[in-house]
């Protein structure tokens, strides 16, 4: 039977003129990777900071490892790892020193081998003796993850761990996060990158304006809210649009591409045959599976770029 590690029920965080978190409920079971996905200001960080014991909720219940986050956090501090949003390491400490220092703050005395092991795990072995101020953005986040792991935590909160990193550094960090999950760590990941949530999470909650607007595995969300697959007539333009309409099909024009939604998978072959007969000049025809991007567009009514909604 699944063991709940994080339990959130009717969580509300209200400020004078803003309700940042508005009745959020979810549960994360042991060993799962759960992602809160949403644009900036959706309430992800507020939710996760309540779960980290860094903010008090206005109302509702939040429990981590069976403990009420408002009153009992001291009992579980060393079982919880945290990588805060916009993590910055202490500039004038080297990764090796920072990990040792952080271990002391959790009441642990780590051997040199244990410290090297953690640094190796996050891929910083070559940079272990470099001042943190000289590390790259990706290396700093890796150091942050190393520091969050010193207590051998059962649950780790990663608040937008890849924001601001280049694609290569993001993918390297994904590998590290997957490794943590394989080791059985329960992970709560907040992100505004749709592909990140789709790639990493077992379970995704899409947040907007403080509420969870959809919840499920990426596959479930795509199946329920993705609008099915699409056929793309690349470069068909206005002529292609008219030609498709002439066959009684409702297309969309996205740039110079004509896109035809195919909500039912069984209709794909028949639709492809219909569209293949169009003699309008085009670059290529291809099929496209729905993604969380489509789910987000359908649910929120806007696309999201770097955490900002673009209508």
């Amino acid at each position, binding site marked *: 039977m699944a063991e709940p590690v994080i339990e959130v029920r009717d969580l509300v965080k209200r400020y004078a003129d803003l309700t940042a978190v508005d009745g959020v409920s979810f549960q994360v079971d042991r060993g799962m990777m759960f992602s809160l996905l949403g644009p900036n200001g959706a309430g992800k960080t507020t939710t996760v900071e309540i779960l*980290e*014991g*860094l903010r008090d909720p206005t109302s509702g219940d939040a429990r981590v490892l069976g403990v009420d986050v408002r009153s009992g956090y*001291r009992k579980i501090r060393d079982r919880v790892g945290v990588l*805060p949003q*916009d993590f910055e390491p202490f500039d*004038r400490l080297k990764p090796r020193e*920072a990990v040792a220092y952080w271990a002391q*703050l*959790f009441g642990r005395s780590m051997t040199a081998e244990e410290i090297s092991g953690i640094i190796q795990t996050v891929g910083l072995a070559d940079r272990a003796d470099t001042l943190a101020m000289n590390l790259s953005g990706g290396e700093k986040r890796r150091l942050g993850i190393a520091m969050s792991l010193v207590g051998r935590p059962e649950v780790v909160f990663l608040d937008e761990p890849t924001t601001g990193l280049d694609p290569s550094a993001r993918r390297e960090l994904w590998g590290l996060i997957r490794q943590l999950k394989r080791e059985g760590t329960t992970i709560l990941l907040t992100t505004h990158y749709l592909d990140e949530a789709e790639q990493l999470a077992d379970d995704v909650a899409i947040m907007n304006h403080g509420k969870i607007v959809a919840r499920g595995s990426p596959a479930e969300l795509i199946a329920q809210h993705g609008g099915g697959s699409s056929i793309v007539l690349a470069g068909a333009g206005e002529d292609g649009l008219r030609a498709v309409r002439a066959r009684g099909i409702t297309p969309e024009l996205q740039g110079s591409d004509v896109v035809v939604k195919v909500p039912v998978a069984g209709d794909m072959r028949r639709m492809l045959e219909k569209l293949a007969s169009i003699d309008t000049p085009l670059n290529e025809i291809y099929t496209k599976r729905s993604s969380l991007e489509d789910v987000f567009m359908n649910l929120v009514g806007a696309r999201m770029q770097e955490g900002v909604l673009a209508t």
Partner: protein
Amino acid sequence: MKAFGTQYLRSRVGAFFALIFPILLILLFGAIFGSSGSTTVTLYVQDLDNKPASHAFIDALNHTNVTTTRAIPASANFSQYIREHSINVALQIPVGFQDALAKAQNGTKATVNLTLAGDQTQSSYGIAVSVVDAVATAFNLQVVRASPVVNVVPTSIPGLRHLTYIDLFLPGIIGFTVLSTPLFGMTAICAEYRSRRYFKLLATTKLSKAEWLAAKVIFHIVLLFVSVALMVLTGIFIFGMKAGLTPMALLIISAGTLEFTSMGMALGIFVRDPETGAAIANAIGFPMMFLAGSFFPVDAMPAFLQTFARFLPLTYINEGLRATMTFATDSTALVDLVITLGFAVVFFVVAARGLSWKSK
């Protein structure tokens, strides 16, 4: 604490201001004032005669614009009073002052000796001797037509070591360092920790705020002890300083460090960024440095500023350090230590309670 110390020493600016800058101040001020006077001299006067002639003599001293007189009660033991109140230079007008003048005016030969007690190696003493001599000469000329009646008998303060300018100056510099290193340091640290979200990061560990603050206090005490040792050694070996560190001085330095580390942390409650932090620390620290007697005696300031200085925590550190290091009067320093500890406890409680690591 080790990690914090490592970071601090790697920040060369912090290490410079904590360890090197005070020594530079001693070298600079020692070189400038080591052999000459500097400020208006406060002259304590015990008027044992308490008659119109002695009052006129004191008025004349006050009109020189070089000395300002303050009364020592006639009932006090002159030498003991000087020691207990850490007085640099004091004048005693004996009983019979007016009678001697009256006799001289009537043509009878008479003399009266004024006792000027102080450290004769000190510049303020030399100024006081000159002024009292000048006033006595004027009295001799105007009152008794050039027949010398009033004689000044310079004498050292009984039981007091012969001191140099640096002996008086160094406690003030130590006081300045006890204020500046932890106050400016902690305010900057709070600003950095807040703007870079280190407080939030620390809040995710098992460390409590009180433990963090205590670690910072201990670190600054160790740092201040090293800094003070360097200053004292500089004073001894370069300027031949006689004043030395005493157990009471170390207690006052420790209490003062607790006080200003906590004050820096308490100010951190209001600090949102490094610029604000520097502005707040400067606004509080710099006036206190100058008004609390670090660089020149509180006695030399106007009366209203002297009253104001009584409300400044640094005043008691400076006075306590001077009392124990320069005048060897630990009983006086003990009062300053108790007051400093009182301030320290208040600031520590405010800091530990007021600074929240949690977000609202």
